[in-house]
């Protein structure tokens, strides 16, 4: 019982968007689908939904091609957010649920439940254009789940949310997972993915470059994370200039350094001491998901892929 992406290839003219992509998502799990912009994440989701047709390969749910299954099997939160601006929140939630085959009364009851859950019950009768972007995003999330889909596909669900709403959405993910739903989401927020995902896939240029549980990815990673504190320096920016350091993140009392594969932690310590720094904290930590991502893709997740911006949309 799983969502399987099996050898899926998709080409837009001269651009190869997906190149025999394969991975599987176990049922009832929260799955992170990671990749830089233009890596093929949106195309994969659209193929799962049947919006796009694969040139080769197939997406399957429980052994059946996803294009053969009823639309209500899936819920979709697209990266491009949008609602009918002049329609009230409750009307459009009921509208979308009805398109998925939900009876209007049940949809209305369920919509009110989720609006309460997301702390926006008073917005039910407001027009979408009157809502903040964060609240519009919550409404769109509700629209994606109201019909009770088995699989929830979400493209960048956390973008633009404040910490409170981020927490509400994460809680909702866990609640849905506990109710047996399978959740697949893409994100550039590695901390969120690390905190939520039980399994992950990292794609680059339409190909799977790493996949498995978070533990498996960390065990097999050659990336190293070093935590280094320097006496008298809160933000030692010069650390980024040390050979083999891929990324630098300030933390409380120390700085976290992502090392490139092949770079040994002791080399970094030596370089710091050679510079005359008074090192008061040195720790070799498990590689972060960010480090694993950089190890496989060669750059941070929020750095644009070389192909054109609209390659996923190009016909």
């Amino acid at each position, binding site marked *: 019982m799983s969502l399987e992406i099996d050898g899926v290839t998709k080409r837009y003219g001269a651009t190869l968007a997906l190149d025999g992509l394969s991975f599987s998502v176990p049922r009832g799990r929260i799955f992170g689908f990671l990749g830089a912009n233009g890596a093929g994440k949106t195309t994969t989701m659209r193929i799962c939904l049947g919006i796009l047709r694969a040139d080769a390969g197939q997406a399957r749910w429980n052994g059946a091609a996803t*294009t053969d299954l009823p639309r209500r099997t899936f819920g979709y939160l697209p990266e491009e957010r949008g609602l009918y601006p002049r329609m009230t929140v409750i009307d459009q939630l009921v509208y979308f649920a009805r398109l998925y085959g939900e009876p209007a009364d049940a949809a209305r009851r369920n919509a009110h439940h989720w609006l309460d859950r997301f702390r926006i019950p008073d917005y039910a009768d407001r027009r979408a254009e009157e809502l903040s972007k964060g609240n519009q995003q919550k409404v769109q999330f509700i629209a994606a789940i109201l019909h009770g889909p088995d699989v929830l596909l979400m493209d960048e669900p956390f973008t633009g949310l404040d910490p409170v709403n981020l927490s509400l959405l994460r809680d909702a993910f866990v609640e849905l997972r506990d109710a047996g739903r399978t959740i697949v989401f893409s994100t550039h927020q590695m901390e969120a993915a690390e905190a939520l995902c039980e399994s992950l896939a990292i794609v680059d240029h339409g190909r799977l470059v790493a996949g498995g549980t978070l533990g498996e990815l960390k065990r097999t990673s050659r990336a190293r994370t070093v935590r280094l504190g320097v006496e008298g320096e809160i933000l030692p920016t010069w650390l980024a200039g040390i050979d083999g350091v891929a990324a630098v993140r300030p933390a409380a009392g120390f700085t976290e350094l992502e090392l490139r594969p092949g770079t040994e932690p002791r080399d970094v310590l030596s370089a710091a001491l050679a510079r005359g720094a008074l090192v008061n904290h040195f720790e070799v930590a498990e590689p972060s998901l960010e480090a694993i991502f950089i190890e496989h893709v060669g750059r941070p997740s929020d750095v644009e892929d070389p192909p054109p911006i609209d390659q996923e949309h190009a016909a």
Partner: protein
Amino acid sequence: MARHDPLLPNAAIVARREYVDRVRSKLYRISTLVLMALAVGVALTPIALRYFDRARVDEIGVITADDDLAAATVATANGIMNIPPPGADPKEWTPPYAIGRLLDRELAVSDLAAGRLDAIIEVGRLADGTLQVTYRTNGPADGVKAQLAGFTALSVAILDWTSSLPPGSQLGTFRTPAFNTESLVGPVENGQAVDAVQVASRGFLGTVFIILMFITILIYGMWVATGVAAEKSSRVMELMISAASPRQLLVGKVIGIGGAGLTQYLAIALPVVLVLAFQDQIARAILGAGGAGLPTGGLTLGLLAAYGLFFLLGFALFALIYAAVGSFVSRPDDLQTLSLPLSLVAMAGYLCALVVLLGSAGTFARLTSLVPPLSPFSMLARLMVSTVQPWEVALSIGVLVATIGLVAAATIRIYATGVLLYGQRPGIRAFIAAAWRAH
């Protein structure tokens, strides 16, 4: 096995949303009321003009040095210009022209210039004895009045010529002959040729109908295109396309927006049709017996039904193409440019219909009334002013329906591809490619 996406209920759900969204908007309600008032106003214009003109009597002076010629001209002009309309009570009817002889030419010309006189008919004789009649007005001459003056001149000339008959010959009073026109291809109602007055009336109505059809198809077609483009630019399309199939969305949108357009159209047309249908009665009530005979006779239920049918089919055809156009633009602003060729096609249909209304009944009329997208305009025009065989009407409808089916199939493919395209300037090659290949 492919996903089963039946048209219903989703197309109906989409159609309902589209319909309610438009009909509930303030702009829609206000524009409907304004257009309704305007349309009724236009329909009542002929009556209003005649109402304001009802008490007006044109003063026309006859100037000639010859007493006999003066008497003959006054009598003939009265006989021709002051004919009571059918059914008018001669006792209550006021002749629209007061015609009399004026002896002082200079005074008459100065009265004409000052507006105290409406026209002068000046009759003289050339050296060879030929009569010379001049109809003089202060400003451009009214076409109908000038024509009546021309008839008067001709009649006076006939009287003048017959005055040279041998002594003792008797001639009765000159009577205006009955005058009719007939056409071999004119419209037939219940097996009888429709009379010339009604043919002229149908020509007028046909022009009104064709203009209405042209304008409404363009306006409501653009509603469809902007509706699709707005969904795309607001990104709500991303949600829609995963919840319903392109076919369900497209059909629902065309029906919903078409329904809103049709509602507005009916709200405007129904009072107008009522005014036109009862125009004679309204005119009689306001103007008396002389008010009948306005230019909207010949309006039948059959013609109204034909208009409704060809409007719906024409709208369906154009709306589908407009939806495809709307799906290809990323911003509603780009629609103006992209929809221009479609407007030109509609304009071609409109012009063909006008040619037919002006009397073309040959191969051109037959051909254009069978070939979509010209046929809704052209066939309606033919039905208004000429005889059309039932098989021709059936063939025209059949070809139109088949074309709508083919266009719908291509449009669904274009739409499915177009709604996912962002940031590209669409061209004709992109349309053709989208129509031919699956997304």
